């Protein structure tokens, strides 16, 4: 067991899979010699060379579209989108093509590829380097969406994503890259897609979260614990496919559910979680399924005062927990 940062775990996950499987390649802007703007791919170009670590032109639709083609012809591409905010030019390729290839060929042609992208705010990234984009893609059948919250999971989930036969979007909260550390075994292991994890057990309120919000949620749980509120924190890890059993099992136990997400509230991923819980755990609910989420403004503004206003925090989540617990 070594202690690794979040980004090191991601890098290790890629390097490990590239060593194991010669068909895995990495492509994206600045992923080669520079090793990526966050250094997620640092060292890969030196180890695997020009053919397997490709510095692409500044063209996201091409990065995704060519990855689809490469996946159809025997490779397993890991495409890096430099910031999740810049995935939008590739939206058509992801939604119309990657997501539908297996379905439209009646199962004959698959597209095994991973799209990695740093998302999320609180890093002075402003309107265009802070976005949470998961809701756009969790809505799309045919895509899988993973958002890890620990270095252990980051590596294990990434390995599973690379081995998956279908396109997986893998979003990494950029604020966690260097601030989060944890134990990561040196041995090869995977964490399966589609399984949530209960990070903290509790009897009164289920807090559903993913990515950075898991850490904030755990901190919020600590804050309210002395007040006698026991929070169960469910880390979804894979947003699609969703682990309904773990989610509903927890809510049926606690009777109260709060969903925390950093993205804009209206139509965000948490809306689906809330809707599922409201429908499928209705008889168990002792309070309204609640959400705490990013404000409904177009994007995270830059000035620190504005950014702080936008971002969720352990304190804001704790307030929402208190309100729900008191219901």
């Amino acid at each position: 067991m070594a202690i690794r940062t979040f980004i090191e775990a991601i890098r290790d996950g890629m390097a490990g899979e590239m060593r194991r499987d010669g068909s895995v390649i990495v492509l994206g802007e600045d992923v080669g010699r520079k090793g990526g703007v966050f250094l997620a791919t640092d060292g890969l170009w030196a180890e695997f060379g020009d053919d397997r670590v490709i510095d692409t032109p500044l063209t996201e639709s091409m990065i995704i579209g060519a990855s689809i083609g490469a996946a159809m012809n025997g490779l397993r591409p890991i495409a890096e989108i430099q910031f999740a905010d810049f995935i939008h030019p590739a939206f058509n390729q992801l939604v119309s093509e990657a997501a539908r290839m297996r379905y439209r060929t009646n199962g004959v042609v698959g597209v095994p590829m991973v799209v990695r992208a740093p998302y999320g705010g609180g890093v002075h990234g402003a309107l265009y380097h802070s976005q949470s984009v998961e809701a756009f893609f969790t809505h799309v059948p045919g895509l899988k969406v993973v958002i890890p919250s620990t270095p252990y999971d980051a590596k294990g989930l990434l390995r599973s994503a690379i081995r998956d036969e279908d396109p997986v979007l893998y979003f990494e909260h950029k604020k966690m890259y260097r601030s989060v550390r944890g134990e990561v075994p040196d041995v090869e292991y995977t964490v399966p897609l589609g399984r949530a994890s209960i990070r903290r057990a509790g009897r009164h309120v289920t807090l559903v979260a993913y990515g950075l919000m898991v850490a904030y949620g755990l901190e919020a749980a600590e804050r309210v614990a002395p007040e006698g509120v026991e929070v169960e924190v469910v880390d979804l890890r894979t947003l699609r496919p969703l682990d309904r059993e773990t989610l509903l099992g927890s809510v049926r136990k606690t009777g109260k559910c709060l969903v925390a997400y950093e993205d804009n509230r209206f139509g965000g991923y948490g809306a689906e979680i809330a809707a599922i819980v409201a429908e499928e755990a209705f008889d168990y609910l002792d309070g309204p399924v609640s959400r705490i989420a990013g404000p409904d403004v177009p994007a995270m503004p830059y000035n620190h005062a504005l950014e702080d206003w936008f971002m969720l925090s352990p304190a804001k989540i704790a307030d929402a927990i208190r309100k729900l617990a008191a219901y």
Partner: protein
Amino acid sequence: MTLTGDGPDATASPLAASVGLADADLVVMYRLVALARAVDERMWILNRAGRIPFVISGQGHEGAQVGLAWALRRNHDWIAPFYRSIATCLTAGMTPRDLMLAQYAKASDSGSGGRQMPGHYGGPEHNIVSVSSPVATQILHAVGIALAARIRGTDQVAVAIMGEGSSNQGDVHEALNFAAIHRLPFVFIVENNGYAISVPAEREVSVKDVAMRASGYGIPGVVVDGTDVLACYRVGREAVERARSGGGPTLIEAKVTRLTAHSSDDQQTKYRSETDLAEGRAHDPLPIFRARLREAGVLTDEIEAALTVEIAAVVEDATDFAEAEPDPDPFTAVDWVYADPAASEPPPPWHPAGPGLSGGPH
């Protein structure tokens, strides 16, 4: 894809010899053009008869399609075609039955199992990429396929095909730039029929020839007369050889004509003059190729008569066969969202919950 070899098939008229083929090749090529036309015409008849709700056609494009595709290695090279690529698909190995199954959207349609709209062909066993509707996306798939071919050393060439209107999409720019930088084994074919639905070329492409755009990527751009099947073959062969030997991509623009409305949902007389339509008909590749082969003595009365009978029978067979095949079972609609059925969301309430029926292939 040449048949040239020893034996009687190797006979070559001066015309055939001029492009390095045997007369037998030319006859097969002619048959493909004529067959594509016959299948296509049947599609319209079926549409008018209410048998199939939608037709989109390759009529006028067939000469270029056969000539260009003839330069590829069947079941080895890759093709990312578009909705007019009937003759391309036939040349690459699909059969009239395959096409008609797609047209009727039957369960046994090997491209999509009846999920795709007519005209959206796919032939995985022939390395024909499944056609989708948003135009131009396929160029990036072909480029990615070419990238994989290069990295894996498969000696494959990838071809993408679309109309001139579609060539203005952003994906085309990004694809050509990347393919050119990496000198990928890639050929881009534009079938320019002068219209994007109703919009004439001068309102949708800012230059006379799409091929003029090639130099902006540092790759060769060639214009070829789409009624000249053998010229298309020659141009295609050069591009494919260049691609295969590491010389990088080529942009080929074939000037063709759209003999029909855009699709069965369109009325082209609303936006095309009678002169324009007549001019189009004068560029029908079928009679032009036929006359050329007859002149060269490659096509004789005998051969023609035999082909006519054979093609009629094949089209009849394909139609009857497809018509008789069953529709897909509606409950298969949940299948193949993912390779792993367990990854699917639960099916809707009206879906039977029996084993094998919820969320996965059965």
